[in-house]
């Protein structure tokens, strides 16, 4: 006796592997694709922008505080020292993106391992790890990061580590929640009953199923890390030796009322970068979870 294959619901018909289905839904999402294009453009500008707009952002090129189009000012005007704002915008992204990337890697490694172990084993291991997580969670993240950066001298490395240390609890909690949910599902129990080892169950069975929400969350944390970095730089706690959008705004704090362009354009760059991650994260969320679309 053979049973014919009947699709469970018409929407899910012929869509092959779940990953490919998500990709297809993502590509169909205009906002998400816009976010992706925006991000690619920003990364491209950061990596290769100086080839096309070859201006040293730290050099004084004109009279200070000239607006766009005034006199001999460049496209985005000049800052309080007479430096080119556009050059700053073009070159300011590399610090933000590097810091955010390193911080997020740190968050992913710490958060996922702690969350996975905590959720899978439960019991006293869970209690102990969650208490540590809680300790980091009650500290206001920005203040905590500021103290770390100030103690260890501001540098790209200390800023990344500080942001990573202040941000991982959220990922740990999410991973733990996913593991708690998944470990009691029947396909995980079936793997256990088949004799699979803990390592195989954690990384081979549960983890791939916990990935979609984690990818979404990590994407959004990437955006948050950029905001975080720019906040620190704004306060003067960024790497003093590198150009950064947040720093540009921070330095213009005393003079911005005489030159709106000195804060507006760098801020837009931060906003666009974070927005691109938000849009991508949102699109991924919808793609992984078509039922919840638009929520």
């Amino acid at each position, binding site marked *: 006796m053979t049973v014919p294959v009947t699709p469970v619901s018409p929407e899910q018909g012929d869509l092959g592997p779940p990953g490919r289905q998500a990709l297809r839904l993502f590509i169909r999402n205009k906002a998400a694709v816009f976010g992706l294009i925006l991000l690619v453009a920003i990364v491209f500008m950061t990596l290769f922008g100086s080839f096309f707009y070859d201006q040293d952002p730290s050099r004084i090129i004109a009279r200070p505080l000239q607006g766009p189009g005034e006199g001999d000012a460049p496209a985005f005007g000049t800052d309080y020292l007479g430096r080119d704002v556009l050059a700053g915008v073009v070159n300011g992204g590399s610090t933000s993106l590097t810091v955010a990337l390193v911080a997020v890697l740190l968050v992913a490694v710490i958060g996922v391992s702690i969350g996975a172990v905590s959720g899978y084993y439960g019991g006293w291991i869970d209690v102990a790890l969650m208490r540590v997580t809680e300790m980091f*969670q*009650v*500290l*206001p993240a920005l*203040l905590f990061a500021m103290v770390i950066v*100030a103690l260890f001298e501001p540098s790209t490395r200390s800023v990344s580590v500080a942001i990573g240390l202040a941000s991982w609890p959220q990922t740990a909690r999410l991973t733990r929640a996913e593991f708690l949910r998944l470990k009691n599902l029947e396909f995980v129990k079936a793997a256990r009953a088949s004799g699979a080892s803990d390592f195989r169950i954690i990384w081979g069975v549960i983890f791939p199923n916990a990935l979609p929400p984690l990818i979404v969350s990590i994407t959004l944390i990437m955006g948050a890390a950029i905001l975080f970095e720019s906040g620190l730089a704004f306060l003067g706690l960024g790497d003093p030796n590198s150009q950064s959008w947040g720093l540009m705004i921070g330095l213009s704090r005393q003079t*911005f009322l005489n030159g709106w362009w000195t804060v507006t354009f760098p801020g837009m760059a*931060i906003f666009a970068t*974070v927005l691109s991650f938000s849009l991508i994260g949102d699109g991924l969320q919808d793609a992984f979870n078509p039922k*919840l679309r638009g929520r």
Partner: protein
Amino acid sequence: MKQIAARIAWSAGLILAVIVMCFSLIHLAPGDVAIVIAGDSGAGDPEVIAEIREDLGLDDPFLVQLGGYVGDVVQGDLGTSYRFNEPVTDLIVTRLWPTFLLVGTAVSFAIVIGVLVGVFTARRPESPISHGVTVFSLTGYSMPVFWTGLLLIIMFASNVQWFPVSGMRDVRLDGNWLEEWVDIAHHLVLPSITLGVIYLAQYSRLSRASMLEVLQSDYVRTARAKGLTERRVVYKHALRNAVIPVVTVAGLQFGQMLSGALLVETVFNWPGLGRLAADSVFQRDAPVLLGILILSSTLVVIINILTDVVYRLIDPRIRVGAATK
């Protein structure tokens, strides 16, 4: 009651752990506090440095210093500021209420408007307004808060002078209490909108999602099957269930909000804890920083407990003692 007591006991332990961690972090980090305190004038003089070290007990074994500090904190003494030479506790207390005012206003504004917007759009999920809220929520969340603040100043305090550029009150004002309050409220508008807009973005989205889910629930179907009007279905049966996740998230985010307040206070020169913290970082004023870290962690813990209480009031399923057998 027992649960609450246990929760408070546990929270005390948590705060103690935070104190130990922050104290260790600050005291084991590279750099000599004494040199910082000695400042430009005395930094070269080893005698001055030694005197300071003696004064502060910096030469004692680390654990002795830690023990002494914890003992003081328990008695409400957070030490003396290096910079201001004033008790840290006094410094913090005077800065506490402006921060409270700012965060409180921002969060109330965000929750009330956010939930209303969420409910409104959940009832018409395909309407242009509903899509507009999605866009607003994404942009609101993606804007750096200090930038929003600067833009608002440019637009509403500089171009048109509807609101003051910075500060919490007009020093020239000499009026009665009502005028004082109106003045503070006037100063409060831009900072609280700046801080609130991020959370408004998040809560409107969250309550919309939560409302959409609740509107699909079986008990809403039951309410409709009873013949209730949609208004009653939404505002009586759905709303109370839909705000539960919003309350939870708002409680959990309190720490983040303090971080946001720090930036907003810096932008608007708001005389709160955040600005004190930012200044202390640059002046390496360790006792003040430690005090603020400890106090804000304690606040976060307290807010979490309060959230729990509110949560229990809204949702009888976890009300203490409700599960009688």
